[in-house]
């Protein structure tokens, strides 16, 4: 087995300028760009760069972050004009000596690179993103074949980073639009064979700012860091709604497996 190529890790390769959009609501000044020179090592992500600035150059730079492994969805921002997760973007791979960092668009900016995601959460909540069934305490597991799982699984990968809303041109004007994230989640639950809640979600989805405000610009799927492809979810949801105009769509609900006592020994 050969040695793994970690060459260059731990050494400074070059210096890159981060041009960060700064905005401090308390100063009363409009946003402005400030440049910071950051020594970049192999493997250094834009988030590492921002943290370097924060710890060594200017303590007051603010950004949202947590997991630094691209799963919590905190660190969405616009890097060199495109929506990306800061912690998943290698500075060196950008191939530029100047990295321009903006907060996500179509949200308010709280401070510097921190967007106000209230809208995203509100929209997500409005599509009832949970399994809707009548029974409170089902007695067994719901059966779901790997194929049935695959029919919605890709949409469960959404980390709620909100990048798609920043890239979506409809969101650029229509702040009441549900947005690709929420719509994809609606589709995720509707197409989950355990769910029976289509009808409860219809009036939100089929509203003036629901699923029909997507014009399939595909930008959401393009920037999604998790390959969720919300655009696909939206179009399939739309197919469901159009056919629902002619023939009422029925959800059957997953069959139940053996009851809990026999599965778990506990009732």
């Amino acid at each position: 087995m050969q040695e793994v190529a970690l060459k260059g890790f731990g050494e400074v390769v070059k210096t890159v300028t981060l041009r960060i959009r700064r905005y401090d609501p308390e100063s009363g000044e409009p946003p402005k760009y400030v440049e910071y020179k950051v020594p970049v090592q192999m493997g250094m992500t834009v988030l590492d760069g921002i943290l370097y600035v924060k710890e060594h150059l200017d303590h007051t730079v603010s950004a949202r972050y947590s997991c630094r492994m691209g799963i919590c969805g905190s660190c969405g921002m616009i890097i060199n004009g495109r929506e990306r997760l800061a912690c998943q973007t290698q500075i060196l791979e950008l191939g530029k000596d100047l990295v321009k960092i903006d907060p996500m668009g179509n949200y308010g900016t709280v401070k510097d690179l921190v967007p106000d995601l209230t809208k995203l959460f509100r929209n997500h909540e409005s599509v009832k993103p949970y399994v809707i069934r009548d029974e409170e305490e089902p007695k067994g597991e719901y059966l779901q074949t790997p194929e049935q799982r695959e029919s919605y699984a890709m949409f469960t990968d959404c980390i709620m980073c909100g990048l798609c809303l920043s890239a979506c041109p409809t969101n650029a004007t229509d702040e009441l639009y549900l947005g690709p994230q929420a719509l994809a989640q609606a589709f995720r639950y509707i197409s989950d064979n355990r769910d029976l809640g289509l009808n409860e979600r219809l009036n939100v989805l089929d509203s003036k700012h629901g699923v029909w405000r997507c014009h399939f610009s595909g930008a959401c799927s393009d920037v999604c860091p998790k390959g969720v492809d919300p655009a696909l979810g939206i179009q399939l949801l739309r197919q469901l709604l159009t056919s629902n105009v002619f023939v009422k769509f029925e959800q059957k609900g997953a069959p139940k497996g053996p009851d809990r006592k026999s599965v778990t020994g506990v009732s």
Partner: protein
Amino acid sequence: MAIYLVEIFDYDLVIVGSGLAGLRAAIEAAKVGKGKLRIAIIAKNQLMRPHSISAEGGSAAVLYMDEGDSFDLHAYDTIKGSDYLADQDAVEFFVRQCPVDILELEHWGIPWARREDGRIAQRPFGGHSYPRATFAADRTGFYEVHTLYDTMLKYGNIDKFHEQFVYDFLIDNNTFRGVLAFDIPTGEIRIFKARAAIIATGGLGRLYGYTTYSHLVTGDGLAIALRRGLRMKDLEFVQFHPTGLVPSGILITEGVRGDGGILRNAKGERFMEKYAPSKKDLAPRDIISRSMMTEILEGRGYKGPDGLDYLLLDFSPIGDEKIKEKLSQVREIGIHYVGLDPLKSPLPVRPSAHYTMGGIDITTTGYTGVTGLWAAGEAGCISIHGSNRLGSNSTSECVVFGKQAGGDSAKWLLSNDKQVNLSEGDRAYAENFIADAYKDKGDNDPYDIKRELWKTMDRDAYVFRNEKDLTEGLKIVRGLIERSGKITIAEKGNVYNQNLIASLEMKNLVELAEVVIYGALQRKESRGSHFRTDFPKRDDDNYLKHTIIQKVGGELKLSYKPVTLTKWKPEARVY
């Protein structure tokens, strides 16, 4: 700066932390409360982004008794894994609850991996003698958090507060009265007056620089509890996950080895055959971590950046299709962070700080002993993990005991209507605390102190420990505590002041570091994750007991608590 709006909320139950434990507790409390309780859930990041989201591998549960698994087997694995420091009654309770809660998650829509017949699939995991890690690709924790978060949205009477930094609890006369926090986006101080609270703030992983933890896991809840005189149990046991990715420390799940991955040293040997002949790469984490460090220290590792020497995790036995299907996230991580695709190349790994076995001393219902205060998840220590947690037991623990804490506190709240009151003094205290935190008290930089702490912990309280290192480390940490009182906050604004947060977190960390090292110094034996090179043997005669540390008048007070043994007698631990 300087204007501190104080807003006062009035709740029955406040849940601090929105990890698996916190979310599960909130749902259970809402269910048990049947709309009669006013519940708030608050966390310092947005509620759907707790650290639990990083959990990858799986959640343990006995689902297929008909196929050979059993509660006793799970309990035995857990207890043996814990090096017999687990409280066995708690473990027995735990293993029986796991399947119930795993199925509950299933009903709420989690995309568990499935078998062909539509039933839930499971994968093998380290230290378990049966493949019982219920999983969903390699993002189990992520799916669990989102399923719970989504399900929580169903309950109208849970108020959700994102980005509230909790800096203290109001506790007097052993009674809980409220939570002090500030709203990060506005800087506004908020007092959550409440009759009860659940601490679910997670572990203390960011004591270490090289760690699998999120940046935000700074043990705040533990530190506050410590300051407020609660009992800290077994904090010296910190788990090191064998496969942290060099150089960032990001986790490469144990599921890789569960699915067939192999650890190799620089000679290409599968060295785990030597250390754990039967379980090999699926031995418990403490054993693998030690074996890896032995290999590295004996010169059979590769030279890594910044002294992070590493070994290799070989993916080739797994097969491309399986990697793509079950380990997609690991693959993504490999490509993103070291530019290596596991389909083609092994990944560089090294033991990385991963889990806090200890925590606030609680009962199986999460009760802390302070009236109105419960704890759950990694912040609590019921002692089912003892001195070493088995992989996949902790996410299960969070849902199982999160549910217990939520249910128990809700029942307690319904059955008594004792009210709590705030006084003017509380308000002044809340304000002064923050006013004081803003003040410059010296020229130390919080980030410098944190970096120094990381260096110390990574060196002195890592996998192998000894008297000399620990004493030295304790001295440094005490110096850091001293310095942490004399810092400058560069940023003075109210809005999203991460500088202020960093300084508060740093203070919490150094105080916990002292407890961890102090506890490690006092435990003169090797057990589970705590390995003393100067006392390399387990010592059941003197140390088969839990370390309890309390802070009394600024001093650490050490005491012990017996371990509950039921069916399983301590025996030698070979795998």
